[in-house]
């Protein structure tokens, strides 16, 4: 294992490359340390993303992540509390991009509530299928024994749940969602269907259009449950 001292000297190199001179470090230690911490964090995230995507969650160790990121194991642990936290952060970083995209697209979607939901999930599948193993690592890690039970849950993706709720609220105004339909129940069913559809990618090597087709049928079925009678 590399000593924390090695980690510090390794972490100095990107700061040097960005033009931070020793005297800057001496006079503005907090911000330099901040920059350095940020650089370490990004390197760990990048390395972890690659390894999870190639070897899966169980098949990747912190030691390998550290070595791939060219930082010490110790400095990985000063930034992240656990392997799961790294994975969680990797997913969060990726999803930030996805949801920025969805925020742009959603207001322009036309059609029924079911149609808008279909489009929204199709965008998810197209996005995630490019890093299938990473997503599967995320699902698998949800049930990892060593995690505290309070850790973030697969299917508890708040942003996705909000988007579904917004979709349903718009539908209730437009008249194709029953005003008394419980959004949380619809959300849970859709999330369940969404996660389960990944089995096609995991075991049948399905592509995004195949997963979208299966999800479309499930959305249609759920929609008959929330449409006005």
């Amino acid at each position, binding site marked *: 294992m590399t000593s924390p001292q090695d980690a510090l000297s390794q972490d100095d190199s990107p700061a040097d490359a960005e033009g931070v001179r020793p005297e800057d470090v001496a006079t503005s230690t907090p911000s330099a340390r901040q920059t350095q911490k940020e650089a370490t964090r990004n390197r760990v995230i990048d390395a972890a993303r690659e390894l999870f995507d190639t070897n*899966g969650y*169980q098949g990747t160790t912190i030691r390998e992540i550290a070595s791939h990121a060219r930082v010490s194991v110790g400095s990985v642990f000063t930034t992240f509390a656990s392997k799961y936290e790294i994975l969680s952060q990797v997913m969060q970083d990726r999803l930030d991009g996805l949801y920025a995209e969805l925020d742009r697209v959603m207001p322009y979607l036309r059609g029924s509530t079911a149609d808008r939901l279909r489009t929204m999930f199709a965008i998810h599948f197209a996005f995630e299928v490019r890093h299938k193993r990473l997503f*599967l690592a995320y*699902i*698998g890690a*949800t*049930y*990892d*024994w*060593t995690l505290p*039970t*309070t850790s973030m*849950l*697969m*299917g508890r993706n708040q942003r996705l749940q909000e988007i579904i709720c917004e979709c349903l609220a718009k539908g209730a105004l437009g008249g194709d969602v029953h005003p008394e339909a*419980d959004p949380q*129940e*619809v959300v*849970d*069913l859709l*999330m*369940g*269907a969404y*996660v*389960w559809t990944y*089995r096609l990618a*995991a*075991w049948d090597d399905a592509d995004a259009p195949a997963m979208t087709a299966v999800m479309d*049928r*499930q959305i249609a*079925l*759920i929609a*008959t*449950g*929330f449409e006005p009678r």
Partner: protein
Amino acid sequence: MMHVTTIQATDQTGVKAPTRRALAKQQTRAKVLAAARRLFSEEGYEGATIRDIASVAGMSTGAVFANFTDKSDLFREIMMNDMVALADSMREATTHGNGVDDALVRMFTAGYNFYRTQLPLARAAFSVGWSPQEGPALRSSPPVQSLRDLIAEQLAKGVESGELRADTQMQLRADMLFEAYLSNYPQAIFEGWSIEDLQARSRDQIGILLAGARSR
């Protein structure tokens, strides 16, 4: 097991040794399975090692390997035994149902009751169920298939009684009902939902998924 001993003892005197050995093998297997069940519940699938299991069972790792090829073999055996028992109690529950919705709610509730006292094992099962190596085999195993069939049967009964209309979506509906049943386990495992919470949620989910098939 006893009847095997009796038959062999009366018909083939002088070949008791292999019988006794077979009996001892059975007892060893049972001991290993009990130890493994305890450790999987306490340490989870990843945390339980063959070495620990052997030590709890009071035998060598060699003796464990003589009976099971590896850890996943052990876990599979426990899961399969459980699921056969689970399928029985779920089937029994459906017979008390008053209509399709009620039969399904009772069926799901029987499942939640079964695992309520061994949620760690359920959690380990989900973990294995999503693993690329073990997942497909577990999901397509006969006990799991029988749970799916049981749901499809309830829908068929509903069509027969005129409660539901037959349509082309019945298989998908049955699959989604099964997934809805499974999808509530995280709430039980991670958020401590009670049986009543799970039951209420199941009832609503079943209502939504059957809405399109109801006779009007």
